[in-house]
């Protein structure tokens, strides 16, 4: 096992990693920008090194300073957390060069899974279902009709050069397909100077469900079940839960198996997440694999009792997995809410400032991962997430009631946060029935936003 680890991150995830290291008896080195001198991760770590100016580019993304800090203080490994350098394969590779263990998968695995096209190829080869569609561009209406028939309506026409919704058209029938095709082409041509289009199955009100996997350097792979992260606002996850209200035991087993197949095909080790879109009929399609610990990893920890970050560190130290698939038993229901310093009544504008009294919720079934304390100043330089509240309950109703209780007792003076918005979501009847999907906020909460 390592005796000293540098944490190349800040905020709650840096605190989370320090906690894991402490429990493993590992010394910790915090790094911080000049804006983060008073941060909790700096206070908590055994050692701390200033690595640059407030902008992340000068500090938390400054590879040279981070590696020099690790070398200066004798770190044996670097934990990148999430964001910043966590999925930078170049950094992972450099760590190795400088004899520092990168706590994550191999650099070339990060690189491969970071490349959408390569990742899809690996997944397809492993028999992982992808969103059905044309293999590349579609040149004629006849070809489009054939593809559409094959994959089934409704279908989405997308511009090959596309982005931002330009050149996208939905078609429900062969008739509407004809017109949609030509307008999509025109729009694509106007927008990108390229009228190439392709066809994908349109997933209505999809769920975003992801499988947490853990693998060691010896080819052992397990999964910790799913997280339902369908509740999003502009592709930002707001609330995550495990298990999902959609899956039954059979679906869970199948998705877990497929996720492990994808990970095995990528020669994956460490903690990773295989993300799927799931339609109403429980068909699931691979989106991507995240080669790092996720923000929402605690919900899996709460239901399985497995400490994902500690396991990630053990794996990096060359230990075999501590668990077999049979050891993984999910119990109860966990929900996470990301508390952001943002004004939900003002288009979720970031709301930095100095916190007054800060009293976190406690009591049974409540976990808080936070890097804020009373009188701490939230700077405008980084992510606006200031705390994660995670609750566990025997069942979903208890977890929902407990989350409401916890959010209501959370005192964060002087700062506007997303807590009132979360409380509205938790009170929403559709949410309470478990009817969530990625466009839930637009459809069910639009009057609230």
């Amino acid at each position, binding site marked *: 096992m390592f005796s000293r680890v540098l944490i190349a991150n800040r905020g709650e995830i840096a605190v989370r990693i320090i906690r894991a290291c402490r429990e493993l008896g590992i010394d910790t*080195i915090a790094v911080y920008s*000049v804006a983060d*001198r008073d941060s909790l991760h*700096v206070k908590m*770590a*055994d*050692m*701390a*090194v*200033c*690595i*640059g*100016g407030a902008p992340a580019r*000068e*500090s938390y*993304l*400054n*590879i*040279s*300073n*981070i*590696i*020099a*800090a690790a*070398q*200066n*203080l004798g770190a044996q490994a670097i934990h990148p957390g999430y964001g910043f350098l966590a999925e930078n394969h*170049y*950094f992972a590779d*450099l760590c190795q*060069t*400088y004899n520092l263990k990168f706590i994550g998968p191999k650099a070339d695995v990060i690189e491969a899974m970071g490349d959408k096209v390569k990742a899809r190829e690996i997944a397809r080869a492993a028999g992982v279902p992808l969103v059905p569609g044309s293999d590349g561009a579609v040149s004629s209406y006849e070809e489009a009709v054939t593809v559409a028939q094959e994959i089934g309506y409704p279908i989405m026409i997308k511009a090959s050069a596309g982005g931002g919704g330009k050149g996208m058209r939905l078609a429900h029938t062969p008739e509407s397909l004809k017109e949609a095709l030509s307008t999509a082409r025109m729009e694509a041509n106007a927008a990108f100077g390229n009228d190439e289009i392709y066809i994908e199955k349109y997933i209505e009100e999809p769920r975003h469900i992801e499988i947490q996997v853990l693998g060691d350097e010896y080819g052992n792979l397990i999964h910790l079940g799913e997280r339902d992260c369908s509740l999003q606002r502009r592709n930002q996850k707001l609330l995550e839960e495990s298990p999902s209200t959609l899956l039954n035991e059979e679906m869970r087993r199948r998705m877990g198996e497929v996720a492990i197949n994808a990970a095995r095909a990528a020669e994956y080790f460490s903690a990773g997440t295989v993300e799927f879109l799931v339609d109403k009929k429980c068909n699931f399609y691979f989106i991507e694999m995240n080669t790092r610990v996720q923000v929402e990893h605690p919900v899996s920890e709460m239901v399985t009792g497995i400490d994902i970050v500690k396991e990630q560190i053990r794996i990096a130290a060359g230990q075999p997995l501590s668990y077999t698939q049979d050891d993984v038993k999910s119990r109860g229901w966990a929900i996470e809410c990301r508390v952001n310093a943002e004004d939900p009544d003002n288009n979720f504008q970031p709301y930095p400032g100095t916190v007054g009294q800060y009293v976190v919720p406690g009591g049974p079934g409540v976990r808080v991962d936070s890097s804020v304390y009373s009188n701490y100043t939230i700077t405008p330089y980084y992510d606006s997430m200031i705390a994660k509240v995670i609750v566990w309950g025997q069942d979903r109703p208890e977890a929902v009631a407990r989350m409401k209780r916890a959010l209501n007792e959370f005192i964060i003076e002087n700062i506007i946060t997303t807590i009132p918005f979360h409380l509205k979501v938790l009170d929403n009847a559709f949410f309470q029935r478990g009817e969530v999907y990625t466009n839930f906020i637009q459809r069910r909460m639009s009057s609230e936003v």
Partner: protein
Amino acid sequence: MKRHPVVKIKKRSVRGGDDEMNIDEIRELILLLDQTSISDLELEKEGYRISLRKANSEIPAPVNNSKGKVGGTKALDEKEAKITSETAIEVLSPMVGTFYSAASPDSEPYIKIGDHVEAGQTLCILEAMKLFNEIKSDFAGTIVDILAENAEPIEFGQTLFIIEKD
């Protein structure tokens, strides 16, 4: 008040041990510069020489002429800076690395207390990732204090020198 560090590779290659520098290694160097605060690189190997420089390579000058120190650290002991006058300027480290007071173990230190330095004169070397970075003075003045010791690990913003500006 800008600083343009120049990097000289002293070891044979970044990875060490290789005899030839291949395209991958050059790519690595380019990416390294791109992602770090190091802006200029000169590399000499048997048979060829590479010089790299970032397009927009000016980094903010880490000097401090207030009496307060920019920060502290739990890990690294720092001496107290002796600022004697209003025109005394603290020269702060622009990076994390190891402080070298001389070009090599056998050489004389670049500067001593009491020395007068010109703008552009080398004050020390900071090593990071086996790259050796000459730190030069932005202005002419007299060395009042040297706050880092040879081979000492240095963090960003740490006071290295106090120079009484001319």
